[in-house]
């Protein structure tokens, strides 16, 4: 297998072309370095203040000199336990941050064109595949809600249905698979369904047909009903 020579749309070779790398997040070490830089600037500010006091341009107590004298008479104190443990924990966290590779934020779209014949040019995020999957699932009949979790190999679609049926399940799986195929063809769609329970207490009772009474019996019943009211018990 030979590596294609980088060239542009007109076949003009691009000598400095390098394979594009996936978009990545800002390295975590940037935060540590920025914090460290701010601490250095704060210390520099204190040093300027102490310098001015040392030159007797203003009066006051020198903080760095006080810190230096405090170190000379340093002895163990109870608060040093949590401080030392915190230093180690934060230090370990910074250490992990300094060696962890920056996270990739996007993956290459499988169905898109390449740049220069060998570099992927179009990228998307897993969350966008999830959003598309949920949108497609919501379009299927009987689907009330849809949520999607996209993993490296699987797309897990959780749906809330008004009525469950094998046809609905098949339709959701089929449509989601087709929808994500252009960008993430290798992923398997896993479907998880729930059916919305209808609250019985709010369901009106089924109407009961009352049999027609003979005319003479009905007249008698009406007469007795006016004397003693009948309690009608609601069917549940």
């Amino acid at each position, binding site marked *: 297998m030979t590596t294609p020579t980088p060239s*542009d*749309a*007109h076949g*003009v070779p691009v000598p*400095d*072309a*390098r394979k594009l*790398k996936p*978009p990545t997040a*800002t*390295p975590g*070490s940037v935060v*540590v*370095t*920025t914090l460290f*830089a701010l601490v250095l600037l704060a*210390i*520099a500010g204190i*040093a*300027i203040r102490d*310098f001015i006091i*040392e030159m007797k341009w203003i009066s006051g107590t020198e903080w*760095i*000199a006080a810190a*230096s*004298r405090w*170190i000379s008479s*340093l002895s163990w104190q109870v608060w*040093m336990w949590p401080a*030392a*443990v915190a*230093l*180690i924990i934060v*230090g370990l*966290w910074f*250490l992990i941050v*300094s060696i962890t590779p*920056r996270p990739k934020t*996007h993956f290459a779209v499988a169905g*898109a*064109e390449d*740049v*220069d014949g060998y570099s992927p*040019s*179009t*990228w*998307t*995020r897993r969350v*966008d595949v*999830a*959003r*598309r999957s*949920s949108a497609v699932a*919501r379009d299927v009949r009987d689907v009330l*809600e*849809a949520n999607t*979790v*996209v993993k490296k190999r699987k797309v897990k679609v959780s749906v809330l249905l008004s009525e469950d049926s094998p046809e609905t399940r098949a339709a959701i799986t089929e449509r989601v698979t087709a*929808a994500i195929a252009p*960008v993430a063809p290798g992923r398997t769609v896993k479907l998880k369904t729930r059916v919305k329970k209808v609250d019985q207490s709010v369901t009106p009772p089924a109407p009961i047909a009352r049999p027609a009474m003979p005319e003479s019996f009905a007249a008698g019943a009406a007469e007795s009903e006016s004397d003693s009211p009948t309690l009608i018990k609601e069917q549940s």
Partner: protein
Amino acid sequence: MNALPAGLNRVVAFLVAVAMIAVGAAAIAWELKVTWVRDRIADIDASWFDRAPDAGWWVYVLAGIAVGGIVIGFFLLSVNARPRKIGDVELPGSDNSGTLAVSPGKIAHAVADDLAHHRLVSSTRSKAVDDRKRKLLEITVIADPTTSFDDLLPVVENAQRQIRGALPGSDLRARVLIHLEKSKASAQRVN
């Protein structure tokens, strides 16, 4: 971010981490009466810290801390705050008699603006960046989640072809990021 500033950030973070762990561990070891640590601390002349502020050179130490803190602090901030802009790109037709050049940011903005008017695209963002020594026109296309990838990809590819057609032989490449808007009806998670 390019390799050099990223590497510098990692080195600084590593050194800060090692210093913090060393100070914390030394303090605990001192309290736990670890002989080796106690011997090392005993070697330090503690009274020197008491005498130093009264020495004649103390003012120079303060000046050094101030200058060093400002120089290193602003340098580290500038490394991370520096925009990864790329210079103008030379266009075909440039020769000894003259140079035709265009700002990559303006190309990215023009392409993004064109894409934003497409019916399938909700909005776009664009920037021209130098990412790990790759000169890129990064265009983020934002669309509604009801828009099919099948419909969206040809639109994006057409824009990429326009960029390549406008910059023959250039090492400036397009990187298109497709984002879909968050649906209000549901939330999505990614593991």
